[in-house]
Each structure stands twice: as structure tokens, then as C-alpha cells.
């Protein structure tokens, strides 16, 4: 057993494994880049870089199973820690290389933290509006809220990752002691459109209240997909309520259950910030006689614990606060007439590891400096000694 473990340890920390993993990373990057000719960035990222395994179709026909970049980079981190740090020589001659390896480990660690904990999305505000929430570009969620009172409200959230993978045939039931019904998701569509069913129509799927969901091919720009699902609400007593939930519905599903009014909404995943942002004024100027933007900036107030601070967010001057960065991303409506209210769109990023690449670069640079400085000193000393002799 000890031999097996030792062999396994040697394999994991071997230089050969490093070479194979780097070649695989190169291959995945190459294939993932080519794939973007046919698929969107989001789908390619999921398939090639956030997966454990994948099947690449060579020339579009020959299936080739490959490890995903998630698995390759995890193995690379283990390989680097065991081979490049634990097993590496620790003499002063190798301190520089050791530091370089530690820097790369920091880089991989930052990537892992970003993958697991970062949040990205957008916040759209009309002039005069404020919010402390931003919504994801791609991910969906089901939100159930008791809308009986005047607020504040408690929303019960079912993350999209718990039902979007079900496909058109899968089912899953969700419940909470606080809810007077169970919610059963019976088929989820990544991109779809509800369509009315006429008397002579033969819909491909289930019909609920005269509508069926028509599955559409996923959009290349994944943020344009409109998710949808069939849901059944089963109260503890009484009849079940069937409904279609669609991600672009302008009006949420509203039901009465347990003597209360409940709002159920399929929507883009929302994230809360520890502070609110209020848009006071949005300014956009075009170059004279053209539609080319010369300047667009948002005058906002950052509101936290009752304290307000005025900030201007423009193209190269984001608002950074409490680990969140708000960039000026867009504005609209594009066809706004003079005097019509405008909205400003901020790209919001929260990444606990956003400084890790900087730390890694510092450590790697330090390691290279130590390594090459030592070699230079040794060379100079050798030259002086040979000159002296």
C-alpha cells in the first residue's frame, strides 16, 4: 500500500505530468478559441474551461473525449504544490525558482477563488432611482415572496443551478416550512418563448392555460436567452396550480395560498450589495453631427448606513467600494427623444481575489530577480576569480 501511495505521489508531483497538463491547457485553449466560431463565449467557457470532462467534435463529426480545464488546472495546482514546492530543493540556489512556483500557485488559487466566489452582473437605474441589487447576465433564479404586506419582504430563492439542468423532461420539488405549498419544476428550458395554442394547433409540449413553451436554440449571446419552465404549486390542501414561468414576463405569477398572496418570479439571479447606489443624473454627449459618444458619465450617490457620498462614474473611472466595482457600461434608451428619461447601466463585479494576479506577479518577479541576481553574482565572482588567477 505504501508503495502504491509513493508511486501515486511521484506521479502527481512529476515533471512529466506538468508537461502533459500544460500541453492539454494549450490544446483546450486552442480548441475553445476555434469553437467560438460556432458558439458563444459563455457556452465555450462552460464547455472547455469550467468542466471536468468534455467531448470535442473533431471536424464536427469525430467525438474526442478530453479533460476539461477545471480538472487540468486543479491537477496542475496539485502538481505544482507537490513537485514545485514540497519536493523542490530548498537550498539558497533554488529560492528564486521556489518563489516563482509559489507565485504561480497564488495565481491558480486566485483563479479558483474567482471561479467559486466572484459575482458579475449589471445594475440598471433610471435617473431618480436607487438600488442595492444587481442582476446576473446569465444565471437564473426562482424567487417566491409573500406579497401580502407593505414590506420589507422575504424572498425565498431557488438558484437556477438547482433546476435549469433538469431539461425538458426532468422534475424536482422544492419546499420550505415557511411556504404553504410545494413547488414542483416539471421541465426547464434554457431559451424559449410562450406561445398561445389555438384550437387547431398541435403543440409540441404541455399546454397550460392556453399556452405552451416553444424551445428555441440557445442564443450565441447567452445573456439574450429567455429561460422558462413548467411549474406546479401543490398546497397542503386544495387543488394544485399549474403555471408557466418565463424569464421575460413583464408581470409575475401571483397566487393565493394559505390566506396570503404570493409572487413567484423566474428572473435573472440577483445579488445584494452592502450599500445602495442612487442615480441623480446621467450625462451623454456625442461628437457634433455624429452618433459617436464623446462622453457619458453617471452622477450617483453611494448610500451606506444613512451616509451619502456623491460619486461620478465614467468610462475609465469606476466606483470601487467594499469589494464591489461599478463600471459605466451602457445607457439608454438608444432612441430617446430630448427630455425623455434616460437610464444608465453599470457592470458590477465582486471578486474577492481581484488582487491575486498582482500578488502573484510580485512574487514571481521577486523569484526571478532572486534567481537571476544570484546567477549574475555567481558569474561575476567566477569571472573575477578567473581573472585573478
Amino acid at each position, binding site marked *: 500500500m505504501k508503495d502504491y501511495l509513493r508511486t501515486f505521489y511521484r506521479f502527481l508531483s512529476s515533471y512529466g505530468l506538468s508537461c502533459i497538463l500544460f500541453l492539454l491547457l494549450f490544446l483546450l485553449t486552442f480548441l475553445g478559441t476555434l469553437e467560438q466560431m460556432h458558439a458563444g463565449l459563455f457556452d465555450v467557457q462552460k464547455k472547455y474551461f469550467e468542466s471536468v470532462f468534455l467531448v470535442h467534435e473533431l471536424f464536427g463529426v469525430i467525438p474526442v473525449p478530453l479533460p476539461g480545464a477545471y480538472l487540468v488546472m486543479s491537477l496542475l495546482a496539485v502538481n505544482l504544490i507537490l513537485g514545485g514546492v514540497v519536493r523542490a530543493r530548498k537550498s539558497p540556489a533554488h529560492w528564486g525558482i521556489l518563489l516563482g512556483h509559489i507565485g504561480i500557485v497564488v495565481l491558480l488559487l486566485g483563479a479558483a477563488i474567482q471561479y467559486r466566489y466572484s459575482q458579475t452582473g449589471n445594475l440598471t437605474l433610471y435617473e431618480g432611482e436607487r438600488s442595492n441589487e444587481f442582476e446576473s447576465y446569465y444565471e437564473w433564479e426562482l424567487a417566491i415572496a409573500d406579497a401580502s404586506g407593505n414590506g420589507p419582504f*422575504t424572498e*425565498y430563492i431557488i438558484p437556477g443551478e438547482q433546476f435549469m439542468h433538469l431539461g425538458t423532461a426532468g422534475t424536482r420539488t422544492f*419546499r420550505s416550512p415557511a411556504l404553504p405549498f410545494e413547488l414542483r419544476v416539471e421541465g426547464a428550458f434554457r431559451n424559449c418563448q410562450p406561445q398561445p395554442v389555438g384550437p387547431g394547433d398541435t403543440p409540441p409540449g404541455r399546454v397550460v392555460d392556453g399556452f405552451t413553451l416553444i424551445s428555441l436554440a440557445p442564443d450565441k*449571446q447567452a445573456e439574450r436567452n429567455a429561460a422558462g419552465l413548467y411549474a406546479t404549486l401543490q398546497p397542503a390542501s386544495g387543488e394544485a396550480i399549474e403555471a408557466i414561468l*418565463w424569464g421575460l*414576463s413583464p408581470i409575475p405569477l401571483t397566487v393565493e395560498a394559505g390566506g396570503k*398572496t404570493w409572487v413567484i418570479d423566474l428572473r435573472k439571479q*440577483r445579488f445584494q450589495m452592502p450599500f445602495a447606489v442612487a442615480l441623480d443624473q446621467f450625462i451623454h454627449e456625442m461628437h457634433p453631427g455624429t452618433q459617436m459618444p464623446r462622453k457619458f458619465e453617471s452622477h450617483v450617490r453611494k448610500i451606506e448606513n444613512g451616509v451619502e457620498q456623491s460619486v461620478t462614474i465614467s468610462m475609465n473611472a469606476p466606483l470601487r467600494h467594499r469589494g464591489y466595482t461599478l463600471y459605466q457600461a451602457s445607457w439608454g434608451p438608444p432612441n*430617446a427623444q430630448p427630455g425623455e428619461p*434616460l437610464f444608465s447601466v453599470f457592470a458590477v463585479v465582486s471578486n474577492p481575489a481581484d488582487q491575486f494576479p498582482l500578488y502573484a506577479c510580485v512574487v514571481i518577479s521577486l523569484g526571478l530577480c532572486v534567481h537571476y541576481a544570484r546567477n549574475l553574482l555567481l558569474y561575476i565572482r567566477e569571472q573575477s576569480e578567473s581573472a585573478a588567477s
Partner: protein
Amino acid sequence: MAVRDRISIILPTLLAVVLASCGGEGSVTEITQTRRVDSLPMPPRPDATSAQRFGYERGMNASAPHGAAHSAEEMELPFTWATPEGWHPAPDRPMRVVTFTAGPAQEAECYVTILGAGGGGTVANINRWREQMGQPPLEEAAVSALPVLEVLGKPSPWVEVRGAFTSASGEAMDDALLLGLVCPADAFSVFVKMTGPATVVEAQRDAFLAFCTSLTWSPPADS
């Protein structure tokens, strides 16, 4: 490396991967995530029908933000149309009077828009459509030579452009076909446009032309 050694490496790795991929998904899942909010993003509408929730029936779409484009019903259209067989109405979209989808998998889209006065001009709009299909612009003389349909009592040129379609939002489609009609009515211009895969739109050409000619002025309210 001996075969036995290799097996000792590969087997535990495979086992770990298989175990990691087991989701342990039960039939009932507890909802554990909650969030406190001061206001709901969309207020409850207990009386909303499915048609209203999906944007097929207008007039209840009050949750549209300030300044959003008005729905067709709010615009009190002065004309009506006949929907060709096999065309399905699609939900409201900003700036559009009505949107339909057509084709075996609803791949083609046809919609009507209205712009004030000339709406930028017939030549400019037809060339904008040609640009979206990756085609060079036409001279004014060439536009004047386009086939014409009688729509809403006005001679309305229509155009057929084949190419790689790029929508205003940057969405691309190879081998696409665009059918477009410009109807310069007195107070405004009506634009009818259909796009989609070339084979699908070709099959819908007659339906498109029939739809255009079906546009009819509504009778006055007191008649």
C-alpha cells in the same frame, strides 16, 4: 512504470471522478436561501392572465419603466391587418407595433414598425437593411426601380436582400434572407420587415406580401 503501478494510479483517480460526479439529487429539495428586500421588483397582479403575463395582451404592461416605448394599443393604430396562416404572434417588443414568428421552428421573424413622417427616408432605410445583410447600398435610381405594392393606398417599394444578416444588436446569421417593405403614409411611414434563414423566409414570401397588402385603414370611430 509497471502495469500494476499504472492501474494503482488510474483506478483511484477514476473512482474519485465518478464519486465527485454523483450529485446525490433527491426528489425534494429544501429551500435554504432567503433574501430581505424593501420592495418587490414587480408588484403582485392577482388578476393577470397568462396572455398578459407573457405580453400578448396589452394595456396591463404597466411595469414597463418610465419612458419605455408605448405598446401598440396605447398608440391607437389607424390600421389593421390579417395574420397569415402559420404565423404566430410574439410578445411585445419596444418600438414594434406587432411581431410574428413563422416557419417550421418559428425561425423567421416579421414585424411592423412606425416612424414619424418619412422615418429617415425610403432610400436610407432600404440601404440600412442592405447593410445589415452585408450588401452594398443602392443608388436612388435603383431604389426607384424596386417592385412596388399598393399598401394603405400608397405605392410601397419592397426589397429582397440575401446575405449574412447582422441585427442591430450584433447578432449574426449566415445565409439569411430579408424581406422589407416601406409604406410612406401621409403622417408617418410603416415598415414591415421579415428576416430569418433564407430557405424559411423564401417559403414565407407570399405570406409576407399578403400580410403587407392586408394592411387596411381602420374605419373612423363614428362610422
